[in-house]
């Protein structure tokens, strides 16, 4: 018994020491990323003409106990086409070309496509705009800060008119997009993990 207590106390002390040691890093102010650095960060995307990537998404809705999980595929075609396709739990495609957005649900005979008014696209249109990886536009629209460990946060320059509170981004090896976290104004949180992107560069 005594040995077990001693072990617990020891473990607690080690953890506390570790916390104290890492505290300065944790509480350090996030560093603002200047536009030039942002350009470097997103260099891999600057020459991309086509991007195809699968994703896994977890949406946590404020007040709900169970998160919504989905998987799908993202297709970006520069300059202005973005297709956000949910494959599970059911097929759904949000397609944005320019400012026009359509939503297709169902497949085969049950397929239904409808135009979505801009006012109803909300955070989705903000996400799609972000997905165009237009670095100059991103620098205009967002204040980017480095959170550490390849995490960056994009806070809108005009928070009152922006549909999202912020977008957190994790870059993986070779600065490829790994995770996106959307913080909605309602308090809902959407975490999107990207897998095996296929990229086609501009000629």
């Amino acid at each position: 018994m005594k040995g077990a207590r001693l072990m617990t106390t020891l473990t607690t002390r080690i953890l506390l020491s570790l916390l104290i040691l890492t505290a300065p890093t944790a509480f350090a102010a996030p560093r603002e990323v200047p536009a030039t650095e942002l350009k470097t960060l997103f260099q891999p995307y600057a020459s991309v003409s086509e991007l195809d990537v699968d994703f896994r998404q977890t949406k946590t809705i404020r007040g709900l106990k169970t998160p919504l999980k989905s998987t799908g595929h993202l297709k970006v075609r520069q300059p202005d086409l973005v297709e956000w396709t949910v494959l599970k739990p059911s097929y759904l495609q949000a397609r944005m070309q320019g400012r026009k957005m359509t939503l297709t649900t169902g497949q085969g005979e049950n397929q239904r496509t409808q135009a979505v008014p801009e006012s109803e696209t909300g955070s989705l249109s903000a996400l799609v705009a972000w997905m165009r990886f237009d670095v100059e536009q991103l620098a205009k629209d967002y204040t980017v800060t480095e959170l550490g460990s390849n995490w960056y946060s994009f806070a809108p320059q005009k928070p009152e008119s922006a549909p999202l509170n912020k977008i957190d981004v994790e870059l993986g090896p070779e600065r490829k997009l790994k995770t996106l976290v959307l913080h909605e104004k309602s308090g809902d949180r959407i975490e999107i993990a990207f897998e095996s992107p296929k990229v086609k560069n501009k000629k």
Partner: protein
Amino acid sequence: MRLRGLVLFCLLFLSLGARAAEPTWYDRSNEALLPANLDKKILIYTDYPAFWWNFAVVEFKTGEIPWGPLRKACERELAGVSELIRTSPCLPFQGPFAALLKDWSRDYVLRHPLPAPTDLQAKYDAGLAKASLPLPPEILSLLRTDPMSALDELQDLAKSRAGFSFENHQGFFYDPATKRVLMPLQVDRKPMDVAGVGAVKDAFTAICKDVDCEIAGYFGPHFSSLENEMQTRRDVDVVSMVGWTILILSCVLFTFLGRGRVFLLFFAMVPAMGFAGLFTYLIFGKIHGLTLAFGPSISGLAIDYGLHGAFADKDDREIWRANLLGLCTTLCIFVVILFSQLPILRQIAVFSIFGLSFSYLFLYAFKLKAPALFHLKPFSLKFPPSKIMTGLAGVFLLFAALSPLLLKPNLSLQALNFESPATRHVREWLFKAGEWKAPLIQIQPRSQTLGISLQEQKDWADQQHIKSESAARYLPSPELQSRNLASWAPELARHQNAETPIGDFFEPFWRDAREAQVWDLSQANTVPRYLRDLESNGQWLTLWFPSSAEQSDLIRRQYPDAASSIEILMLFSKTLASELLWMIPLALLISAVFLYLYFSSLQRSLFALVPCLTGLGCFTVCLLATGATMSFITIIGLIMMFSFSLDYGIFVVSAFESGESDPDSLWTSIAFAATTNILGFAPLIFAGHPALQHLGQSLFWGSLGALIGTIWGTPFLLTRFKSWQKARA
């Protein structure tokens, strides 16, 4: 200025003021216009919100239609008037429409049985897939109440109901040929209640400023009511100004000529109007705006008796006997009108009978109590015989005889509708380019078998491939609802407090669905919000949309009470026309009998009718010459004209009877009365609103003809008749 003209202007003005103040005694309902058996049909446009749709038509001169900015501007501007809006594509999740969507999603379990497990799972998955997108909170809330995609179902039903052949852009209709966008809007109040509708128009003007478009016009019951009211106000403003100017000039002129006291007669009649209003209120419980407009102006005709008495000798009993005869013949007309089926005509008749009688009494009392103030020295007026004028009176008599063949009154209520050129253009365009066809309309009263008959209608329409709209399209029979609801019981229980994505995310739907109750439309005091467009006071609306004449015939054979809007509106004109067919001859006959009893001579009785007939003839000639149209209001104007011109005829024949064929008093009173009539009603001819224009035409042209008949018609015939009698003797 003569009192009846003045009173008409003042009361039209006051009635508009009264509308704003809305006292409890004031009635402006359409029910008062129509007989009980017709009002339920004719008032469908005001009673059923299904007809409360209005459209702003905007036009883009150049470039692509900026749909995004247009919608944003529409959302922004209409948000400011959202309390007036029932449904708009610009405010899809606000106000009554949001509540409607909630009811619609909840009642899915009444409309459909529980789907097979695979279908059910597919529906849930589709709902969860939509919810996985980043969405605005109001959309997410809506999705939580709609796992079965009930909103898509409602959208499909709404599309089939639109009835336009234009492209549909997220609720806006678009005609690429004209680059016109039709922006629909359902107002959340009855069409006659136009308060605030001006602000809605302003909102559309602001939209066009934002996106550089032009308003081509507005179409719909609320915009039409507003347009009518605004035009009436403009007209009344102008007419009032002219009226007051004439009144002031007359006052100055008569005071200068030493007859200023003539205006005391007008004041003697003011209490008479008050009493007439009081008695009308006691009988009907309310007074309609039209009664306030026409009642006092008809009652004001009694000023003729005052003028006739005032310019006569102090002890002239003959004058007052002639006045009494004039009163009796006028009352005959209104007693006959008392038997009309149209409540508004009955109310105007009651007001007029009291108003004329009290005015007569007060004027006579004035003469008895204050003869020095009452009596006035007549002007020395002479109207020498004129062959031309007598010939003209003869022509008018001829046209009066031909008038039943020549006059084609449009007694439809539509004839009283004011339409600006822009509105007319937009309406014609909608019917032509939009291939919009008015549906056939059917009303079903609440009954035990209502649910069954609505269901049978729907089934029959589906069998015949005829588009129809009724409550059955949205809600099955109570028996079927019960069966559907029972099939959902295990599913509703399964998801109670379930910590699964389906149970958790769609929790608002499960909660609402557990509260769903079977609707029995034959019993229910309240109805679900999605059916409120089709219900009014327990009556249910069915709309039929035939695509061909054959389908239309088929519907009429199966449901003979189904009628088009034009046919329904024609019910009013048919009723009025059938009444006029017997009322006018009967009123003239009774008046003629009175005249005969008084004059004991058929010829003299007919001569007394000459001013009426020359008035009618002059009106007929002018109407044909100008190509003007006639309406229900024209008939009221002609009745007024008959009333006063009959008095002129009686005065002239009485004067000849008493041996004074050319007394100054007679011509002074008639000239004064007729001239102020002509001057008073002339401005109405130039009114923009057809109702005021028609009133002005009948009274102005009628007065002119009556004056010619009185001065050059009746005296000529009386002189000839006397000569003939002498020659014969």
